[in-house]
């Protein structure tokens, strides 16, 4: 956000630099059940942003004193592989990845029936394998599919997307140049089935009217993303049933 040396114009002849319309998502592909070891897993590709998520659990809590007798606890770990960004990034947790792990966990929590799994822990492990903006959104969307793949009961799928502002206009699902040099970025997560917003962050400047419009734009996109998530789960369990 607000970096120097970005492109002069982000919108040329009504189209964005990657050829998309303002309210168009990048091509989205989701596959469930990609890691045989995990209880649930998903692979997601959104433009060139790629993420792998695996879910382990519900399983025994370790260390034991963290056990909640009334419900499951959710662990979430977001990590970028060191060759996923333009500059090589140091392995291990950073302040950024710690924040993102926390907000992803909190955006998934409201969807899960934790009280169904007392005294257990559900672990969500996220690896960003190629980063081109929108990694926290891609990770949230993929994590929700991985949780469904693990058979964790949820009240709906959590879908996530970012809405930004480029050349004074709202645009859906920013890619890296727009994210780095644009005017605003609003990642949000949404359970379309229950109409609940579970994540809303904002970086940059938006008027309150623009923010309202951005949220509406994001919610609409999340409904479309949820369709792709459902298709991935249907494909996975269609296959299972045939076995």
């Amino acid at each position: 956000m607000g970096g120097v040396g970005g492109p002069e114009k982000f919108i040329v002849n009504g189209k964005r630099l990657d050829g998309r319309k303002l309210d168009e998502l990048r091509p989205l592909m989701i596959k469930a059940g990609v890691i045989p070891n995990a209880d649930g897993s998903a692979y997601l590709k959104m433009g060139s942003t790629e993420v792998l998520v695996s879910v382990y659990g519900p399983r025994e809590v370790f260390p034991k004193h963290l056990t909640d007798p009334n419900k499951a606890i959710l662990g979430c770990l977001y990590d970028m592989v060191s060759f996923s960004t333009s500059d090589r990034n140091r392995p291990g947790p950073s302040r950024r990845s710690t924040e993102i792990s926390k907000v992803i966990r909190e955006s998934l929590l409201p969807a899960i029936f934790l009280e169904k799994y007392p005294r257990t822990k559900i672990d969500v492990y996220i690896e960003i394998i190629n980063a081109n903006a929108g990694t926290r959104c891609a990770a949230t969307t993929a994590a929700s599919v991985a949780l469904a793949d693990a058979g964790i009961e949820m009240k709906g799928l959590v879908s996530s997307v970012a809405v930004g502002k480029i050349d004074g206009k709202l645009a859906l699902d920013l890619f890296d140049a727009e994210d780095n040099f644009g005017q605003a970025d609003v990642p949000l997560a949404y359970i379309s089935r229950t109409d609940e917003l579970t994540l809303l962050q904002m970086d940059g400047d938006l008027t309150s009217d623009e923010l309202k419009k951005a949220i509406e734009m994001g919610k609409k996109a999340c409904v479309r993303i949820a369709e792709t998530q459902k298709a991935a789960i249907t494909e996975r369990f269609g296959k299972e049933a045939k076995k």
Partner: protein
Amino acid sequence: MTMTLIKSYLDSLLKKKKREDGRGLYDYRELKIDVNPIDKANGSARVKLGDTAVLVGVKLDVGEPFPDSPNDGILITNAELAPLASAEFEPGPPREDAIELARVIDRGIRESKAIALDKMCIKPKEKVWIVFVWHHTINTRIGIVRE
């Protein structure tokens, strides 16, 4: 570590020249190699051998050579056994098995002279290419080192 029961079962299969996963004695698991799947890496590969899957990325950088090899490039190898890949892997800094894996991969590349480190000098004693080889295990059964 194999339990006696399984041992005798495997033994009886072997006598019929069969294996537990349905392969014959000399059959390799299905091998799939995907070259350069990661566009942010300078080079990358995704390799699947049966259910075992790894992702390896290479990043290049320029830096100062080691004082004892002023004309050679530098090879740095790392291996991550991320908790994503198995319930037995825990988050945190690399443990001994990950370090062993990284060092074995390092020796494989270095001692086979697969990379001509002596040709990666830009300016002796000052500037050389550094090659970072990063290994990520995605799913594991057995035999990560080989793969």
